[in-house]
């Protein structure tokens, strides 16, 4: 979304929006093709370099707490609960963690971080309207692509509205931390209902505004912006295909 967008004046941002979607899919495939830490570390390093080149590293820094949680929990979970034979490291009750389990856990943590980095690079280099444009050029029906890009646009508005309503309800004496699970859930109703009511008001107005501007009026749609497909797109896709082939080769060799 807009908070993550860093600009299109970078190697990835200059490619066609459809290419960026293709790059995202291909880049997500590569970490799934390998399970060990050396190739996973190489992939993560490559994706982090891409984040630096595009400026998306700033978004990564903003979610550093999430990165720490992902890395620690993933490494911990897989280390202790994925029984791999090898050199014993630590025994807690019936579970024995091995060095191999730890390395597998680290690899899984890096896989999750790769996905996080890729999502932030994509959101950092692609405008909301370009996501819809790219999907449409890939054959996704216009209305579905439009709903997707509209969802991206509405999310920050709803988040902001939820914060305002929560603050207003707190001023009126609502304490969300009081009581047990059921009581807490009941108290959240006081926030969710006004948020959804304001969303519905917005939806009704939005539908009228869209129709008044001719949404769905014609069969042949034209676009104000045009993104040409250049040699850069071919090169970028070739690079990602090569990386996937290398990952496959590493797995089988």
């Amino acid at each position: 979304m807009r908070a993550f967008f860093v600009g299109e004046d970078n190697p990835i941002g200059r490619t066609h929006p459809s290419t960026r979607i293709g790059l995202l899919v291909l880049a997500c495939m590569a970490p799934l093709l390998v399970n060990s830490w050396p190739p996973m570390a190489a992939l993560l390093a490559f994706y982090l370099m891409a984040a630096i080149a595009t400026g998306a590293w700033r978004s990564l820094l903003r979610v550093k707490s999430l990165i720490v949680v992902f890395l620690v929990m993933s490494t911990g979970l897989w280390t202790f609960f994925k029984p791999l034979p090898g050199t014993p490291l630590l025994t807690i009750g019936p579970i024995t963690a091995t060095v191999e389990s730890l390395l597998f856990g680290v690899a899984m943590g890096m896989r999750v971080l790769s996905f996080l980095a890729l999502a932030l690079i994509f959101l950092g280099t692609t405008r909301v309207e370009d996501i819809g444009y790219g999907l449409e050029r890939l054959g996704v029906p216009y209305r579905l692509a439009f709903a997707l890009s509209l969802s991206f646009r509405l999310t920050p508005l709803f988040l902001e509205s939820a914060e305002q309503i929560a603050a207003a309800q707190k001023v009126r004496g609502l304490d969300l931390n009081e009581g047990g699970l059921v009581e807490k859930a009941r108290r959240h109703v006081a926030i969710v209902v006004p948020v959804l009511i304001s969303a519905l008001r917005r939806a009704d107005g939005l539908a009228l505004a869209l129709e008044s501007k001719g949404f769905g009026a014609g069969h042949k749609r034209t676009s104000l912006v045009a993104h040409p497909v250049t040699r850069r797109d071919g090169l970028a896709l070739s690079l990602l295909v090569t990386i996937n082939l290398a990952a496959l080769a590493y797995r089988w060799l």
Partner: protein
Amino acid sequence: MVELFTMWRSTRMVVLVAVTAASYVAVLVPFKIAVILPGLTEVRPGAAIPILLSFLFGPAAAWGAAIGNTIGDMLGGMFGPGSIVGFAGNFLYGYVPYVFWRALRGRARPGVRGARDWVLVILISLISSFTIAGVIGWGADALGLAPYAAIGNIILVNNSLASLLLAVPLLAALYPRVEKAGLLWHEIMDNEPPVEISNTAVTAASGRGVMMARLTKLRADSAGMRQLARRALGVLLLTAGAVAAVCVGNALSIGLMGVSFGVAGFAGQAGTATVAWGLLPFIALIFVGALLL
């Protein structure tokens, strides 16, 4: 299920898809930090949103839940192949409540029969949770992302709790307001044929003569009966498929490992063909049931 495609003709329904997706994301994203399985799932009070909005917006909620979950994955660092099964699972999670309600109670307002209606809403929410747990658990296991016993059970508990605690009070509070605003899905999509047999009756006042009217009524009633029977079969197949997928998935996943239940979910070897192939008939049953609805 034809309304899943015809709804795209209505601008209001397109906007409601986006409203559902954005509401879902707005509640999901703040909890992305509360990770249960890194890269796969977290604490999800937002799981009540698709259930609630399905009763209100029907097919728009099914598409909205699927799109919202994908956006939530992107913003929360969980985007990947799991998002494909997440899309399918969340689509069904938003699809089951309104099609079940339509099949069992037609266009009646939830709560109009008092407690009996709310019990039905709770049961439908539970079946919806079983469906998403079965589909995502099977998909994540088949893709080798997480063992079925871990992901399937976490989703089942997570979604059941959220929908049981939040969906009923929210539905009771919101339904009258949405109805007043004229934004209920069947009000927007008024071209959908009515479900109840009584509504299919054609009166003799059509001016075509009594005999013609009776013939037309017979034909309409027969079509209504067929539709009802098809939907009843859909309810049965989908329910059986979802419950069986969860039970058999757990049995296969735990049986494979030969370890105690407590650590079974995490200790299991994800991606084994046994769970993927063993659950396939039940997953097929879920989709056949959904098609009939």
